[in-house]
């Protein structure tokens, strides 16, 4: 048995917590997806390093 009694307040807030959790999960998917697309399509390619005049 749980030490703290479940109250209506907790039940009502569960929906809000799930909503926030899903929003954060969606944000992770979006950032990951955008990163994959940008990397695989060359959107984030680094500029080629230019050689300095003394050849280093």
């Amino acid at each position, binding site marked *: 048995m749980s030490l703290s009694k479940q109250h*209506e*307040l907790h039940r*009502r*807030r569960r*929906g*809000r917590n*799930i*909503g*926030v959790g899903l929003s954060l999960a969606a944000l992770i998917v*979006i950032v990951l*997806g*955008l990163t994959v*697309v940008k990397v695989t*399509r060359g959107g984030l390619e680094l500029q080629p390093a230019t050689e300095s005049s003394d050849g280093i």
Partner: protein
Amino acid sequence: MSDTSFDSRTYETDAQFGDYYALLKPRVMTLVVFTALVGLLAAPVAVHPFVAFCAVLFIAVGGGASGALNMWYDSDIDALMRRTAKRPIPAGRVAREEALGLGLALSGFAVVFLGLATNWLAAALLAFTIFFYVVVYTMWLKRSTPQNIVIGGAAGAFPPMIGWAAATGSIGIEAVLMFALTFMWTPPHFWALALFVRQDYDNATVPMLTVTHGRRVTRVHILVYTALLAALAVGTGFTAIGGPVYLAVALVLNALFLRGAVQIWRRDEVAAEGDNFAVEKKFFKLSLLYLFAHFGAILVEAAAGRLGAW
């Protein structure tokens, strides 16, 4: 005081996730999503589907953020109007400060992420749209001039231009035409609404045209703007984003829209109140179909062009 004590009266108005979602004005967001998507897909540049999805999502979030900021600033007059009294802030479910925080946070998020996902021109346009809607329309025009929705309508007209800019990195004449279509559509759409929810605007002392210049003038304005809109909408059919499908849709819908505007113009208040503003309400509903059908036709033309149909 014990650890288990709390005020049982407060939790019943505790905000649910849906209340925060309602702050983003989801119905307005539908229009933003659709027109932005059309702007993006009508552009002559192929965009990766996931980038396109994210771009439309960020534009929608930016539009939603401006809705939350609008509700933060307008909570005093929202409480006075029957149409808006049940919004989360006047209903007491969300604090004004929460709406302000959510609006600012989502604005920053949407602009930065749109810039990172597409380009900074699109991001700058989104930032300007949020600024225009919140500062120019909500804080300034809405309470000071009957031209509020004419100029403020620009905020709702930007999404297809942002979509186009997200795809191309520039602003073409086609994007300007899509902007103009929504911009010219807004006044007759809102004035028809104002004709049948007059009491609301009276109560809130919002200077809508119906309040400041009377209902006869409003009916004339609806007719004039609808005629100008019809010329623009049909004329767009002969540009790069037009075509046979668009032209057919534009001809039919503008004929219906003009007929509705003439009916509104010819009516007096006795006739309008006699049938509980049936003509005005019908015109308002038609205006929703009008915009979706025009942008839908632009989308069809873009798809047909890509498939080489004509």
